[in-house]
């Protein structure tokens, strides 16, 4: 897991993506720009965050889930 550590906490890149999502839903391209991460990392990371229930996919965009929001309070 690149975005979530074995202890369930987001990694540095995972936290960057969650913080970018906190500003509102966005496309992987927008989140990559906001988080300062390569687009391929963001695409795979968002998939991972969504599988873990920390983000939700809506069409081509993503938004923070309630669970994800709790992690970056």
């Amino acid at each position, binding site marked *: *897991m*690149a*975005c979530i550590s074995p202890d369930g906490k987001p990694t540095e890149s995972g936290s960057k993506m969650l913080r970018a999502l906190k500003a509102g839903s966005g496309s992987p391209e927008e989140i990559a720009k906001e988080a300062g991460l*390569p*687009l*391929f*990392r963001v*695409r*795979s*990371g968002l*998939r*991972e965050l969504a599988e873990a229930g920390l983000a939700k996919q809506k069409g081509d965009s993503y938004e923070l889930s309630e669970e994800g929001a709790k992690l970056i309070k």
Partner: protein
Amino acid sequence: MEEIKEQTGHMPRIGEPAPVFEAVTTHGKLKLEDFKGSWLILFSHPADFTPVCTTEFIAFSEIYPELQKRGVELLGLSVDSVSSHIAWVRNVEEKTKVKIPFPIIADLNKEVSMDYGMIHPGQSKTETVRCVFIIDPNQIIRTILYYPLTTGRNMDEILRIIDALQTTDKNAVATPANWRLGDMVVVPSPNTQEMAEERLKQGYECTDWYLCKKKL
């Protein structure tokens, strides 16, 4: 013949869509489609903790900033485990101070290696040879290079190919032998006698009607 085909898997060709994959890497699970919109250099190496491969990884890391300027991502591959890859890149950083910034596929089950024809049994039945696949933003294979186990790759040539592909795509021209960025490019050959005569009046540098060059 069938046995060799079984051992080598599919042999992709330039102009074909790159075989799709989902693979475990040092940067997490990645799919080919994650790279859509970027150029991608997918390259294989025989094994971690080997001398020629180590020099290549350092060299790939050194050209990484130049590749980034050109919108190119790098993705390594070998049949070693992800733990081996992590240990190796950490060792390279510790011993040489060079950080490996790109992901490496841990192709333990050889799935990606077989789909890309990276195992050449005449060289090794268990390791991938030194392959380079240059894949464009539409995920079409544009260049394939194979190097033997004993010969490290030439980074200048890889950068030169990227520059040539991007230049020819943008300007509908071709590049002559030993071309470098900034050199004159080759104007496509004319298809009719009329076009052949017209092009001689267009101010190109022509050796003859079929070989004309221009500055971009």
